[in-house]
């Protein structure tokens, strides 16, 4: 009697260990994390927006999308093969690090490294195929403002240094696999320190090339979405993210620009709006 219970417990234990070690994110797509509602203070805000932006609860992928996951997607959607590339939707560096159409083993990349050299169109198509979408600037920035132990990283000792460190080092020649760093307060990994990430509305809050003049922009110039002065002149990482976003066009592909997907809480899988 006792003996049976012990055996059963042992089996459950073994199963637990096996399951814990199994790389779910590779096999079953990217696990999403629920980010609760809250507010954050954006670096730049659109005209008429309050200083604090409310972000409603949403789901965000725990990890950036990997080469393996993007390969799975391409196998289902042949129009996103590298050889089928159209200039309008991706520039000539699209998946440049892959050895061939269906072989993501390229120079300096692992299967489990974030996929980079993908355009906004490609990223959007991928997320759509998962029944998801790209996160908005506000969603991404809000999720990324969390520290390791607090919902507000700016108050956390060492967090700013951790974020800044990535910018102080040269770009990785070999992009590490996802999930090597700590997850943040919400349980999201690799928001800082690995790659840049596409966002849905990357071009709506603009820093012009001439960033010092952005405070006095004609709003019409950018369809009512021109930026006003930044809220925090010491938030260098945010400046750099906004700077990068505004240097992009939707068909651009960059060596260290990838993405992760998000979705609304109330959306069922496949019910993309």
């Amino acid at each position, binding site marked *: 009697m006792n003996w049976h219970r012990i055996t059963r417990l042992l089996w459950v234990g073994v199963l637990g260990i096996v399951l814990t070690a199994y790389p779910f994110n590779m096999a079953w797509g990217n696990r999403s994390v629920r980010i609760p509602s809250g507010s954050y203070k954006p670096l730049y805000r659109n005209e008429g927006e309050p200083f604090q932006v409310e972000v409603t609860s949403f789901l965000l992928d725990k990890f950036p999308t990997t080469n393996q996951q993007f390969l799975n997607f391409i196998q289902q959607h042949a129009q996103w093969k590298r050889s089928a590339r159209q200039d309008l939707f991706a520039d000539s*560096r699209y998946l440049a690090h892959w050895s061939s159409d269906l072989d993501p083993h390229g120079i300096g990349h692992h299967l489990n490294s974030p996929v980079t050299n993908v355009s906004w169109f490609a990223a959007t198509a991928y997320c759509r195929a998962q029944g998801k979408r790209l996160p908005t600037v506000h969603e991404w920035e809000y999720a990324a403002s969390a520290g390791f132990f607090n919902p507000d990283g700016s108050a956390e000792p060492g967090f700013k240094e951790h974020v*800044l*460190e990535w*910018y*102080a*080092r*040269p*770009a990785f*020649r070999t992009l590490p696999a996802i999930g090597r760093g700590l997850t943040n307060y919400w349980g999201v990994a690799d928001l800082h320190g690995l790659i*840049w990430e596409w966002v849905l509305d990357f071009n709506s809050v603009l*820093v*012009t*090339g*001439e*960033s*010092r*003049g*952005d405070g006095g922009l004609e709003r019409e110039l950018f369809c009512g979405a021109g930026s006003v002065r930044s809220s925090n002149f*010491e938030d*260098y990482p945010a*400046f*750099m993210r*906004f*700077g*990068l976003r*505004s*240097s*992009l066009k939707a068909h*651009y*592909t*960059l*060596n*260290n620009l990838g993405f992760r997907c998000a979705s609304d809480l109330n959306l069922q899988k496949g019910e993309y709006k």
Partner: protein
Amino acid sequence: MYSRTKLTSIHLLVISITILFFRTDLTLAEQRLQVQLSYAPNVSAPLQRNPSKVRVDLETKEVTARLADGVDYNFWTFGGTVPGPMIRIMEGDEVEFHLSNHPFSKMPHNIDLHAVTGPGGGAASSLTAPGHTSTFSFKALNAGLYVYHCATAPVGMHIANGMYGLILVEPEGGLPPVDREFYVMQSDFYTKGEYGEEGFQPFSMEKAIDEDADYVVFNGSVGAMVGDRAVRAKVGETIRLYVGNGGPNLVSSFHVIGEIFDTVYTEGGTLPNQQNVQSTLIPAGGSAIVEFKVEVPGTLILVDHSIFRAFNKGALGMINVEGPDNSLVYSGKQADRIYLPEGGAIQEVAVANEEPAIPLTHEERLQRGQRIYEQNCAACHQMEGKGISGVFPPLANSDYLMQDLPRAVRVVISGLTGEIDVNGKKYNNIMPSQRLNDHDISNVIGYITNTWGNQAELLSAAEVAEIRAALANH
């Protein structure tokens, strides 16, 4: 028949116009002169041409390189170097500018050329994502020596990481000819560790905002213009320096030790508006052109005369002038006599050998040695015995010092002039003789040979006295 002929001739006409159009287009593209870039301290030759259509290709690149001996930094650069290459064009040139950002860059970059009239000096049209190229055109309306820099947010950080250089717009007819031209650019760096702290040093935002520079350097690193990398000239030549200041924060009190600027084009304008200048102020994001004729041989030292920057933060450069002496202009040292302010009563007090009443312990001798070191030696060899690369040799882990202790004693007694080799690096400077007594010398030699990783037996005062006697007998 008629209509067929007519059609054919129209066709021919269209074809020939098309060919003509494309040919003209091709010829125009070929006619653009490629501007030759020069890397500091070199300057490309004067242009001697009329205003033309020219093309400039510049690449932004993020590289990890040496900031000081043992110190690496992740520089953001134009052309892979700090400062970026010097761009030399003519007043009236129509410039087509191609800014390429290397695919391995992490950051977007752009360029603001102070020589450009227009929004952001080109910055508004040149924001370039990694792996892309931006093109814009401008006409060089104003002659002068201008700074260019990156103006991507956050601007301060892009400049602090090394993104600046000079663009010279020659006035029509050019500048008066000189024998040699050099390119020097000062800038300040802010690192997580203090000056000299070894290893990879990340950018420190806090120090940059506080304007608390760890390094102030000429041409991008400590020692970039000293020792083997000093620039050279000959006696009798006229030298023109194109001096820029990239900042990001500090204003330079630019001075050349041992020279007087015959002519200064203040702030890099086209008017040679000042003569006989000792130090000229160069604003951050500004420049100056200075000219001087070198009359005597020797080493001219370029410094920021905000002088702690020169001796403690790296703002030192050198011009080695070779040629025959001219004793009328500069005699060298003609005599060295003892100066006795109170008459002849006091004699050579400094070297009196007083035996301490109680012999000092090993520890006490080292402590006394340290005190003597800090008073007499640390100004040049630095508190940590590291010296200044290429200028003042190191004592810490110095092969030259540790190989031959009696020689070290002789150097302290009589000084040292001329070239020596320390840890594989050449030094050619003057160390004055030190007026220390035998006890002090034995203690200070004991201190420097038993600190900073050095280890050696302590010499006694008697041994020092023997060496001194041997020197006197020579």
